[in-house]
């Protein structure tokens, strides 16, 4: 499905795995290679089942209970401990079980993790990875499925990554863990569960670089996380309708790959951004605002954005389906753009 034009695959030998397995493999590899890598979070150790859905399974057994620590339910304490350990020379991977629970750790993330290097004039560094999971689709309703990546993109000093494929997970985790600065990795709903072909020896994928998944000529579609599945469905339909879409898997939302997006939008003359986060003041706004400025007069249509409506995530399946951007909406919006210019 994917023609990766950004970096060559590390190997041609492929294996089917899902996102959870890829994260687990990345953590295993990183912890083995570097004794400074740590893992902490609620239920992450094997005594507690290696994570509520098993992503960290096997780590504490292999690397010991001091490097892989289950925590009380106390997200401020989790991120605080990770910050201190990071400043103390370690590379902690801290889990906040769901993204909505970052709300109780915002001080630690925003006022401390993201700022300590700057406020200390470079004396401190906080090489911390925050893992968190979110996404609608399982009727978990208003407090368990929000995408707040826009908040963290707006916060100077922390990088924001949202992988799509298992290869993304493996490669982006490997890079994030070795990055000298805080990185938040948002695991997006079904990206954890869908098995996909993955290079056996997938190595690091650079942060800040987007992946051109498919080249096209009529419209550029930028997306990330589980919305990529939606986009790929839509793109197949668009192809049948004779519309050639270039698809970009953004991977890192902040700092985002302006070069890749601008190059593609300039080429196709049309850009559509699709994300699960709310459209209003959402991450797509920054991309649209940047592109309209950089390519003023060169676009055939205004930059389009699709995102969640302005409301909490609803419970009823019917409403949840209406809440999420679905393939027909992507198709319709892309066609609308292609009808212009």
């Amino acid at each position, binding site marked *: 499905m994917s023609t990766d034009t950004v970096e060559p695959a590390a190997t041609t030998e492929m294996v089917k795995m899902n996102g959870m397995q890829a994260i687990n493999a990345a953590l295993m590899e990183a912890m083995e290679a570097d004794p400074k890598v740590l893992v902490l979070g*609620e239920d992450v150790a094997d005594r*507690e*089942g290696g994570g509520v859905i098993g992503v960290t399974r096997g780590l504490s057994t292999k690397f010991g209970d001091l490097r892989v620590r289950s925590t*009380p339910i*106390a997200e401020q304490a989790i991120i605080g401990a990770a910050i201190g350990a990071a400043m103390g020379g370690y590379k902690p991977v801290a889990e906040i079980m769901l993204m*909505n629970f970052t*709300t109780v750790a915002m001080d630690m993330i925003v006022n401390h993790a993201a700022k300590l290097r700057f406020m200390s004039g470079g004396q401190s560094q906080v090489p911390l990875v925050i893992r968190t999971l979110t996404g609608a689709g399982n009727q*978990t309703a208003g407090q368990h499925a929000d995408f707040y990546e826009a908040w963290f993109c707006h916060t100077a000093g922390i990088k924001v990554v949202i992988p799509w494929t298992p290869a993304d997970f493996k490669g982006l985790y490997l890079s994030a863990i070795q990055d000298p600065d805080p990185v938040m990795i948002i695991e997006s709903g079904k990206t954890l569960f869908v098995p996909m072909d993955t290079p056996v020896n997938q190595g690091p994928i650079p942060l800040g670089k987007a992946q051109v998944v498919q080249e096209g000529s009529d419209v550029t579609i930028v997306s990330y996380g589980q919305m990529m599945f939606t986009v790929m469905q839509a793109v197949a339909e668009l192809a049948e309708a004779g519309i050639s879409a270039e698809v970009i898997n953004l991977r890192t939302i902040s700092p985002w790959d302006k070069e890749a997006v601008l190059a593609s939008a300039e080429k196709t003359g049309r850009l559509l951004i699709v994300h699960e986060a709310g459209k209003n003041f959402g991450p797509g706004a920054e991309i649209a605002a940047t592109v309209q400025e950089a390519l003023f007069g060169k676009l055939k249509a205004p930059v389009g954005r699709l995102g969640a409506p*302005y409301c909490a995530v609803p*419970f009823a399946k019917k409403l949840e389906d209406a809440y999420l951007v679905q393939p027909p909406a992507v198709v319709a919006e892309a066609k609308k753009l292609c009808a212009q210019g």
Partner: protein
Amino acid sequence: MTETLTNRASPDAATQLDIYRRMLRIERNDEFTRAQIRQGRITAPYYSARGQEAIPSSISVLLNDDDKICTIYRGIHDMVAKDMPLRPLWAEISGRVDGTCKGKGGPMHLTHPETGVMVTTGIVGSSMPIANGFGWAALLDGSKQVTVAYFGDGASNIGAFHEALNLASVWKLPVIFVCQNNGFAEHTRYENGTSVDFIAKRAIGYGMPGYTVDGNDPLDVYAHAHAAIERARAGEGPTLLECKTFRFMGHVFGDADAYMDPAEKEAAKEFDPMPRFRQKLIDDGIATEAQLEELKAKIEAEVKDAIEFAQSCEYPSDDELRRDVFAEEIPA
């Protein structure tokens, strides 16, 4: 251990029967809910409170309709104990527009103000700070209303617990903090996340009474809840009740309990409040076997009616996404 209550109130026979009625309504409702999910008839994350029935039942017999509760994702038992009607409850967890929240909230966010079910939160610890606000409102109203904040043992380790109990004590709010200590926070055993042997001891740090209670014994819960509610209504401030219990169905529906020693669950069955209290009522001559069977049949009929009702209801229209965001509808 923690503080000992000196003046123990006892429920009379009718009250004991009322407690049992509420327990059975919880237990039957839970059974039917799990069955419906198992059969794929409803799709919803479900946190069974099987085993914890005695706690809200013994407290709710002491509450009026206008007394309030703030509860959590594992809270349907608290609502049912507060006599929330089952039809809007089932319609809600079935995602129908006649649900108490029009299908927008679902099982983790059920509310029903008429019976005092004010907030159900999915965020660990968050029932407590909000309960304080109802307590403040009661003081301002000059009413004798009390508010019960339910939460789990794991929640006693999060910041919101601390801030809420301190504020409630400084402001002398009519709030009862009820920790349903089922020994686990998701997969983590009590002692691996909690630094004190009895959560009730934390009350010392807030200058309020704290009691560790046998949460499987309705009479023990009743006695302590009675004292706490009296204290709150008298304007003397909050109380922390730690009710020790067990959750028999794991954390969430589908949980295989792999982190738990099966022997532990076996051992806990001996203290399962449902058969024990039933037997006690019979032994004490408070009810006959036949009467209790009749009660069960009545309750099951109520649950079945609610399920049927729910299935007959419409799904919400997509316009609902623009409603209730603000008082004024968001333009299309």
